[in-house]
């Protein structure tokens, strides 16, 4: 079975960049149109997703924590409550 993983922050970053370019193009014709608002709304949605992805990456940035999640029985990871 293929394990599905969350999209990497780098990939979302590219999408943010693209969406900003597209929004600027769309709005150059008619800045008050619904299409323009929808385009900037997409930018906001992707920027929020990128920021959440960055936060998640930060959460799991400790190399020892990451190692211990997969190898809790090793010497450096064992913890006993008493």
């Amino acid at each position: 079975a293929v394990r599905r993983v969350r999209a990497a922050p780098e990939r979302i970053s590219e999408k943010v960049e693209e969406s900003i370019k597209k929004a600027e193009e769309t709005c150059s014709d008619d800045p008050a149109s619904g299409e323009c608002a929808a385009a900037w709304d997409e930018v906001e949605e992707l920027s929020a997703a990128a920021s959440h992805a960055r936060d998640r990456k930060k959460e799991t940035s400790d190399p020892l924590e990451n190692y211990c999640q997969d190898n809790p029985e090793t010497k450096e990871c064992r913890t006993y409550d008493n």
Partner: protein
Amino acid sequence: MASCTVVYTTTTQSLNKNCSFSSKSHLGFHHQKHLVFYKRSSSKRGSPCVITCGAAAGDQTLVIGLAADSGCGKSTFMRRLTSVFGGRAEPPKGGNPDSNTLISDTTTVICLDDYHSLDRTGRKEKGVTALDPRANDFDLMYEQVKAIKDGIAVQKPIYNHVTGLLDPPELIKPPKILVIEGLHPMFDSRVRELLDFSIYLDISNEVKFAWKIQRDMAERGHSLESIKASIEARKPDFDAFIDPQKQYADAVIEVLPTQLIADDNEGKVLRVRLIQKEGVKHFSPVYLFDEGSTISWVPCGRKLTCSYPGIKFSYGPETYYGHEVSVVEMDGQFDRLDELIYIESHLSNLSSKFYGEVTQQMLKHSDFPGSNNGTGLFQTIIGLKIRDLYEQIVASRVEAPVGAAKA
């Protein structure tokens, strides 16, 4: 309609003859999904059978609505709230990796973006934003939230924020507490009726701009202009559809620029107001020193060290959209989190279980954004208030069936 499952706990003995259970009899249990029906001991022949709803009492899910714009700290609030109930909130295991749902032992948080009726391409074609009610399926939202509240699991769609597509649905089981967070939890009157408590995070334009700069400036392609353009383009829909929801909220956390520093645009020092509706069942507002008075308090001095620009608290009754409210306000920030205990000791009605609980909760998450100002403080207090509300409602439900059984 009461739909009950009859469970016989005694398997070896037949049910006491005196325990007749007619399907027509109306017992008055509206909320229980399981009726445990058992006989205490075989020696007491003819004793009336006991109907307990002890395990089932409180089964009905408490529903909480949290409204805020994107990038306004909903996720930080959610993490503080789930922490009050203990345990970590995590995405559902083994499901869609882009699921927006967070599950902990007591709480399930669902993101209302999952009820988009139009995906990203659909919105672009029609020229509507996600803020527009036309992009959202309120019928499905109402049906599914109602079903969960009644204890029925649902297959909820997933809106994928990365691809902008609606993914196959995921199973949501009824939790003890369901939090629906997003742009429109109080928009539809039917959904609003289902909420046991509602919160609105009201971030002023100046602060929103400052926060989005912090969030996006490092992102490739973003510039001051693009951030400004994005806020401006969404503003008409925000003002028309999102902002009016705050009149229905039981608590509003308002975040404004500080008044302690003249012309501050950094958005680092904040003036945060906790607006609490009066007369809400099971919710008694927090107050400072004396309930109902108007008070201004500067705690800095011999007992609390504050550096520039200091801390200022205010409290008093006000009117908000025609409702009587109590407002607690904090302007400024803490230098040392442990000194928060001094402030906590002057606030009343915090619904904490022990002295210092607010400070302890804040210290536990000192790395979260807002931990040194009023946003973190008031979010933590609302978390305790929701726990209190939950406990009161569970307690009142346990009492109610007993009264019904006697009658």
